[in-house]
């Protein structure tokens, strides 16, 4: 459903991605791992329309989408969850969901139910300021917010980064519930998480894809993954 072909992306004169290619099939959970500065965020932002590639293409459901504005890309059914875990902190949790439901004309009740479906505890926080949520709750709100309006592809940037072990479990539960129902590209540096959930893994280094893995025993073997860091 998504295919990225020979993508080259720069910030000004600094070239950050070199001939990056990857693909995602329907319902697949794809992970991207690699050290800090490898270009993982740059890759997701380019797919989501926030950065324009110098050359190469991003093809989503047979349509070339590179060069489209991020809001147009979102309308095609792609959602990007940023790395920084920023919610709309001055709005309530419910209002955060309202903003997501508005452009896709989804009923707010259905939107809330969808998020409760992946994380029942959120019901208690609906009328709280989103800014008062904990790091893990914010991450779940961000993922829940991105699920509103039946997107087809979710891009999630380091969902477990900076979270405590217990909270990471909450996030894992959410990811497990989504697995198979929606296509996902997840940037993740925690290789145990990658091993547990991935259908396909791309290891990135210095702006290049170093290795693609699809075999279960390759993916679940942590030492094997570490070789490509």
């Amino acid at each position, binding site marked *: 459903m998504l295919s990225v072909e020979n993508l080259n992306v720069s910030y000004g004169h600094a070239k950050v991605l070199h001939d990056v290619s990857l693909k995602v099939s329907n319902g697949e959970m794809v992970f991207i791992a690699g050290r800090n500065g490898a270009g993982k965020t740059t890759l997701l932002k380019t797919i*989501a329309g*926030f950065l324009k590639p110098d050359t190469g293409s991003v093809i989503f459901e047979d349509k070339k989408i590179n060069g489209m*504005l*991020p*809001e147009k890309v*979102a*309308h095609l059914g792609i*959602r*990007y*969850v*940023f790395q920084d875990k*920023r919610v*709309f*902190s*001055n*709005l309530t949790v419910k*209002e*955060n969901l*309202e*903003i*997501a439901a*508005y*452009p*896709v004309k989804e009923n707010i009740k259905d939107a809330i139910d969808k998020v409760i479906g992946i994380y029942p505890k959120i019901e208690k926080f609906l009328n709280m300021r989103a800014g008062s949520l904990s790091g893990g709750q914010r991450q779940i709100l961000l993922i829940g*917010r*991105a699920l509103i*309006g039946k997107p087809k592809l979710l891009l999630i940037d380091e969902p477990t980064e900076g979270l405590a072990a217990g909270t990471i479990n909450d996030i894992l539960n959410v990811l497990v519930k989504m697995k198979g129902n929606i296509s996902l590209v997840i940037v993740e540096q925690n290789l145990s998480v990658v091993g547990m959930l991935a259908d396909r893994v791309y290891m990135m280094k210095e702006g290049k894809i170093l290795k693609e893995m699809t075999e279960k025993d390759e993916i679940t073997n942590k030492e094997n993954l570490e070789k490509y860091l």
Partner: protein
Amino acid sequence: MINTIAYGLTIGGILYIISIGLSLTFGTMRIVNFAHGLIYTIGAYLLITTLPIFKNNFIIGALFTVLAVIPISYVIERFIIRKLYGVSIDYAIIATYAVVLIGIDLIKWIWGASPIPLSDPIGIDITLFSVTIPLYRLMIIVLSLIIFVTLTIFFKKTMIGKIVIAALEDKDAVRSLGINVDKYFSYVFIIGSCLAALGGVLYAPITSVHPYMGMMVLLISFAVVLVGGLGNIKGTFVSAFILGLVMAITGRFWGPAAETMVFIVMGIVLIFKPIEV
């Protein structure tokens, strides 16, 4: 002294009405918009030009002026401001300042350069708690309160308002949900411009109407916005009234220092509360 305070509150009310648009454009679009002062001036000129047509009915003249500013500000937003998104802030200053210079020359060409006086549209004084003030000024204070409450409700309760609040905090996140943020920013720009024109309309009877009237007001508005916090709706309100009072009270003791004092207060506030961008 109570009279001075009443005068300060009037100035505060007008400053609020003018500054809120500037603050929101600053906060949402990250653009320093000098053209805001021009819209204020245009408001005053449109009022004095149309008043005779409307048989000196001030309210109808004011309403007409505020509505007439919608297409003008739409053009400024669509063809100038929107081109400035994301570019360096000095380009925005230069481009919008150019708009001001062209606008002022146009005004001089149409209406001439000499100041035009306008009389108090109500012309009644009222006495409240042993203070006599023109009813008109009291109405300005009340109107600014109504606008504050309306805007507060607008930003809390309407979808457009919530989207703008969200985008003030994280524009890209709003875009990633499929919302064309620029459309909402232009609504905010137009609302802000209409309020600037209303400010010009309201201030016209208190001073006189002249081509440069927007310049000084704009600088004071910048002070209001910086003290109140960029894009901060409540902060702008509080800061407008405080600086209005500062102006009136300083002016009572030493007229020429009134405006300078505003900038001194701004400087002091900024030392203790750095600008958050």
